[in-house]
């Protein structure tokens, strides 16, 4: 079975995100006063072969922990769907 894992990685909330801030200021300067906060992150998509959805999630989580995200500075979340 093949699965698609869509992973979102962002800087941890406690860490200042200067890129997000710069974008936020730009959004404000063109009139978006209702946008209160902007955070920037990464999007990674994996094609995973596994016997079950649980196994595919486990492989994705393991890859995030080992390489794709750095827990010192980043949070991640993902969705895995069967193809």
């Amino acid at each position, binding site marked *: 079975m093949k699965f698609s894992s869509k992973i979102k990685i962002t*800087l941890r909330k406690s*860490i*200042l995100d*200067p*890129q997000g801030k*710069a974008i936020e200021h730009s959004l404000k300067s063109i009139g978006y006063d209702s946008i209160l906060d902007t955070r920037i992150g990464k999007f990674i998509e994996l094609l995973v072969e596994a016997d079950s959805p649980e196994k595919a999630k486990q492989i994705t989580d393991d890859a995030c922990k080992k*390489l*794709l995200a*750095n827990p*010192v*500075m980043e949070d991640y979340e993902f969705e895995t769907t069967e193809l």
Partner: protein
Amino acid sequence: MSKAKIGVVVFPGSNCDHDAYNVCKHVLNADTKFLWHKDGSIEDRNVIILPGGFSYGDYLRCGAISRFSSIMTDVIRFADNGGIVIGICNGFQVLCESGLLPGALLRNENLKFICKTVSLKVENNKSIFTGKYDIKEDINIPIAHGEGNYYCDENTLSELISNNQILFSYNENPNGSLFNIAGIQSKHRNVLGMMPHPERASEKLLGNDDGKRLFESVVESIL
């Protein structure tokens, strides 16, 4: 004669490897050789330098991919057994990614790549890396990085302070680093990571040799 046998690791994208090699080999006359990142062993080397540069194009996160290079397994084994490892700039990022040093290096606070000589304070001269400096001595060393903003959590910072692990701090913080941290050593004092480039400031001929004593301290510590 020092028994130092220095190995400078070359990753794809390293670009300060030759500077580090030059200082060790031709300025200090130490036994020095390059180690290719695909090699599985550091051979007979007893000092390992992870040089500056943009290994693997800084893809994903700086140092994240190099950390899984074949040679890093042996470098980690070597460091865990007390071996001396020095990471400069990208090398510091690799050491943080590999867990040999705590914390991480974030984007510079002003989002700019900063390339200039900065003033550092030697915070601790009782280390194998800084023995030839005076305590609280100010030295000028160049920096050249976009991701040098040192970050760690509060508990880690208090440990760094109480264990005297902070070796160098910025006199004027250029990048937003926590506690002005420019360079730290590991808890067991055998691993150094620093963003500034001492290898680029080790010859009077090139205008500044404030960095030379770092390499001399290490080489002379191995008798």
